[in-house]
């Protein structure tokens, strides 16, 4: 066991599982963004043929899992476990999708950190010899999130310039014991960080400290420098969180500027699409990872990536009770080849 623990938060997998297939489904707005060519399916409307936003989101998650499973060459019956979660109360998108899919299901709540959280947990289970193939999935939907956390869609409100836009998207990855990469080599589990932000519109600032904590833990415990990776990418810090994290990482002694990017900043064109500080939501990291990053890795443009998905662990109730927003960030290192570095 000692050999697998590199420190308090980082785990090194002794038999790194391979990511053998991916799927990314997005809504119309995301399909008009800068990454549109990377997504497997772009919906023509947010209802996806269903009569409620929640049903639409669950269908997106289900279809993303089905696509990823199909692309893996396996079927639902020989995927051993499904790790999934979403933003809705009681993670109903995932649970109702699991009802249809009939894969043994472990539901997770990490808010927008769920993509990394599910990959961490799935990899640990395979590395521990408990499964051969696992599907990791998550989703978010602008309309279902607004309805639960913020305002009814038709209400006339002004969003502040630092607000973010919840991505309508679902992403799934199948990871397996045998494969030829890219490999999940390390998992760094986050600790909850709360620097006192109370404004639910200011997610980037709320989540940045959690990302900083997890990235520094990962780099310190693996002994790697930022330049080891081609890409260190956060889930949804957005344009505001981006500025904060680069500065805070400098204070920690790491300059990540050359390799850093953020899924929320990449998925929308904030000028043309009026998305203010960028995208957010579980689906943001999920579709960027399973769309853009997966395809760029296949092409050979990215070989080593550290994905840090960040989540804000608030509820509407805690906000009304005047609480601040505790956040968490989980990280997975995905590398095309193993055996280099720690």
């Amino acid at each position, binding site marked *: 066991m000692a050999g697998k623990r590199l420190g308090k938060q980082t785990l090194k997998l002794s038999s790194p599982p391979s990511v053998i297939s991916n799927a990314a489904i997005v*809504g119309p*707005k995301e399909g008009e963004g800068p990454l549109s060519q990377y997504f497997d399916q772009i919906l023509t*409307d*947010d*209802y996806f043929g269903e009569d409620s936003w929640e049903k639409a989101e669950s269908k997106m998650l289900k279809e993303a899992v089905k696509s990823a499973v199909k692309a893996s060459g396996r079927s639902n019956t020989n995927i051993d476990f499904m790790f999934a979660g979403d933003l809705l109360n009681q993670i109903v998108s995932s649970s109702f999708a699991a009802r249809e899919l009939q894969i043994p299901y472990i539901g997770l709540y990490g808010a927008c950190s769920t993509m990394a959280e599910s990959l961490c947990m799935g990899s640990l289970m395979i590395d521990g010899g408990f499964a051969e193939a696992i599907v990791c999935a998550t989703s978010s939907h*602008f*309309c279902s999130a*607004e309805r639960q956390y913020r305002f*009814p*869609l*038709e209400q006339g*409100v*002004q969003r502040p310039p630092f607000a973010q836009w919840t991505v309508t998207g679902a992403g799934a990855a199948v990871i397996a014991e045998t494969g030829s990469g890219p490999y999940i080599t390390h998992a760094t589990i986050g600790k909850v960080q709360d620097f006192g932000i109370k*404004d639910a519109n200011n997610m980037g600032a709320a989540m940045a400290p959690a990302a900083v904590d997890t990235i520094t833990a990962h780099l310190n415990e693996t002994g790697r420098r930022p330049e080891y990776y081609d890409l260190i990418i956060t889930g949804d810090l957005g344009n505001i969180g981006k500025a904060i994290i680069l500065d805070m990482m400098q204070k920690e002694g790491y300059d990540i500027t050359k390799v850093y990017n953020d899924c929320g900043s990449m998925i929308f064109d904030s000028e043309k699409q009026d998305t203010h500080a960028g995208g957010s939501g579980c689906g943001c990291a999920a579709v960027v990872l399973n769309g853009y990053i997966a395809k760029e890795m296949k092409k050979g443009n990215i070989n080593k990536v550290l994905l840090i998905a960040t989540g804000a662990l608030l509820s509407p109730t805690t906000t009304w009770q005047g609480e601040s927003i505790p956040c968490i960030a989980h990280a997975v290192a995905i590398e095309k080849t193993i055996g280099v570095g720690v």
Partner: protein
Amino acid sequence: MDYLKAFLVGGAICVIGQLLMDLTKLTPARVLVAFVTAGAILQGIGIYQAIVDFGGAGATTPLTGFGYSLAKGAMKEVKEAGLLGAFTGGLKSTAGGIAGAIFFGYIMTLLFSPKSKK
């Protein structure tokens, strides 16, 4: 002329609301509660009537005007019906607006569904 006065007074009250929303941590809902209460109090001490006399619909249309109607109605009923008027007067004078809001709201809900945002 009354259109100009209504425009100026109504616009000014909305600007106060905008500044409260942009400069303080007050949410729109709290600003509205503050406005309706302020309108009632200002009518209670006799000031708001002067604003209405000058600004017409510019003073009655913003939510401060709703508070003004409530307070004015209560005070009128107290004069005519004593203490009971404090309870019945406010709703009496705003009944049209409230009933309309509920009824038209329900009709619109039957007819329309929310559209996703672009």
